[in-house]
C-alpha cells in the first residue's frame, strides 16, 4: 500500500523556534517532522509519514493573511501531500485562526482532506469549522496526548473514504452539515415520542438543534462628538505599574477599573501590561500603544471629543473564558451606562 504523505502545519513555539518573541517569523519549510509531528509520525506507523513541516509565526500569519497563505500553499504544494494536519492549537486564538485558515486554503486549492484540533472556545472554531475537520480538544497542551491520536485516526478515515459517523463519535466539532438517512422509526412517531417526553418532563434529544444567532444590533451613532463622553476599555491587559489588583496573565478572573484623572500620557514608569499572550515589550515601554490615552487627551483638549471618561476598564483577553468575558463586560457596561458614557473605544491585542 502506498504510504500516505502528510504535511504538518505548526507555529513558532511547537516548531521549536521560540516563544512570543518569535511570533513574527515568516513561513519556514522543513523536511520531515518537527515537535508534535514526531508523535503524529509514530501514530501513523507504516500507513504514512510526515514528509514536511511548515512553521509560521502566529503574529506573522494573522497580520499578513494573504501573503502568508499564498507562501504556505506554495510550500505545501511542493510536497504533494494526501492530507494536511494543522496544530493542534487547543485554546490559542492566533494559532487557531492560522490552523483554520491554512486548512481552508489547502482544501480549496488542493482538494485534499485537512484535519486540525482546537478547544471549542477558540475563535478558529467559529471561523473555520465548516471548511475542515476540527477535532475537539482540551483547552491546553495538557490534551496533546488525546488530541493527536484522534486527529490521526480521523485523517486516516478521511483518506480511506470511510463514511464518518456522528461528530461526537468521531471526536470532531460539528460542522453544521446535514445528511439525510433512513431511521428505523417514522418521523411522525419520533416527534410524538419527543413531545410526550417533553410534556412529562423527561429527557429528550432534539434532532435539529436551533442555531444560536447571538448578534447585537449596532447602536445609533453619536451625533455631536464634541459633546460626547468616550470611555476606554481594553482586553490588552494595561494596568498601573505593578498590577496592583493582580489581574492574571491568562484566564483572567477579574477586570480592573482605574482612575486616569489628570493623566495625559501612559509611561513605562506608570503603566504596564499584565497580558501573557503577546510580547509585552512594546506595551511596557509605552502603554498608549494599546490604550491610547495620550491621543484622546489631545482630542479632548482640542474639543474634538467632549470628555475622556475618568476611568478605564481593563482585563486580559488571553485564554479568558467566553463566560467570564461576558460577565465582566456586562458589569462594565452597567457602570458606563450609569456614568452616562456616550460611546466606548475597546482595544484588543
Amino acid at each position, binding site marked *: 500500500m502506498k504510504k500516505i504523505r502528510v504535511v504538518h502545519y505548526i507555529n513558532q513555539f511547537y516548531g521549536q523556534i521560540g516563544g512570543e518573541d518569535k511570533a513574527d517569523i515568516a513561513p519556514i519549510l522543513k523536511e520531515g517532522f518537527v515537535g*508534535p509531528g514526531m508523535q503524529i509520525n509514530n501514530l501513523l506507523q507504516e500507513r504514512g509519514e510526515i514528509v514536511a513541516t511548515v512553521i509560521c509565526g502566529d503574529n506573522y500569519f494573522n497580520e499578513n493573511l494573504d501573503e502568508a497563505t499564498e507562501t504556505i500553499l506554495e510550500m505545501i504544494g511542493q510536497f504533494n501531500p494526501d492530507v494536511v494536519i494543522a496544530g493542534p492549537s487547543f485554546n490559542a486564538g492566533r494559532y487557531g485562526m492560522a490552523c483554520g485558515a491554512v486548512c481552508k486554503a489547502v482544501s480549496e486549492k488542493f482538494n485534499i482532506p485537512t484535519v486540525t484540533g482546537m478547544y471549542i472556545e477558540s475563535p478558529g472554531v467559529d471561523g473555520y469549522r465548516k471548511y475542515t475537520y476540527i477535532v475537539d480538544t482540551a483547552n491546553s497542551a*495538557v490534551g496533546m496526548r488525546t488530541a493527536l491520536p484522534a486527529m490521526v485516526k480521523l485523517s486516516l478515515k478521511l483518506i480511506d473514504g470511510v463514511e464518518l459517523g456522528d461528530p461526537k463519535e468521531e471526536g470532531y466539532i460539528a460542522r453544521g452539515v446535514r445528511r439525510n438517512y433512513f431511521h428505523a422509526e417514522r418521523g411522525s412517531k419520533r416527534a410524538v415520542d419527543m413531545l410526550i417526553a417533553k410534556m412529562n418532563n423527561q429527557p429528550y434529544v432534539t434532532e435539529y438543534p436551533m442555531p444560536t444567532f447571538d448578534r447585537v444590533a449596532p447602536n445609533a451613532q453619536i451625533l455631536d462628538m464634541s459633546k460626547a463622553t468616550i470611555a476606554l476599555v481594553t482586553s490588552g491587559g494595561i494596568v498601573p505599574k505593578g498590577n496592583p489588583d493582580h489581574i492574571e496573565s491568562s484566564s483572567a478572573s477579574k477586570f480592573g477599573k482605574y482612575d486616569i484623572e489628570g493623566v495625559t500620557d501612559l509611561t513605562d514608569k506608570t503603566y504596564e501590561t499584565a497580558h501573557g499572550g503577546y510580547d509585552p515589550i512594546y506595551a511596557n515601554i509605552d502603554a498608549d500603544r494599546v490604550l491610547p490615552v495620550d491621543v484622546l487627551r489631545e482630542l479632548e483638549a482640542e474639543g474634538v471629543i467632549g470628555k475622556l471618561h475618568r476611568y478605564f476598564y481593563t482585563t486580559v483577553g488571553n485564554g479568558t473564558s467566553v463566560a467570564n468575558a461576558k460577565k465582566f463586560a456586562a458589569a462594565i457596561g452597567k457602570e458606563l451606562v450609569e456614568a452616562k458614557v456616550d460611546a466606548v473605544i475597546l482595544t484588543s491585542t
Partner: protein
Amino acid sequence: MDLENQARIKKFAEEFGAENLIVILGGAEAEAAGLAAETVSAGDPTYAGPLAGVSLGLAVYHVVEDEIKSECDAAVYEEQIGMMEMVLDVDAIKAEVSSIRKQYSKF
C-alpha cells in the same frame, strides 16, 4: 515545562549521567507538577520542547513529598515551605508525582 528548563535538564543528564541526577519540583498544582514530572521521565507530552520523544527516565520528586521533606532540616523546611504546605493540595500533588515516577523513572 518551559523550553529553557527542558534544555538545561537534558544537558545536565548528558553531562552528569541520568543516574546521577534527580529533579525536585515546586509547582503549585498537581496537574502542572505531573506534566513536569512526565517531561523529565517519559518525555515532553506536549512535544513542544527539547525533551519531546526523549525519555530521560530521571528520578523526579516534588518538594512536598515525604522522601524530600525527611531529608531537610525541619526548621528550614518549616520556614520555607510551611506556609505553602497549608494551602496547596498536597495529597493530590504527592499522588500525581509519585504515580508518574513509578511509571516512568528508571532510577
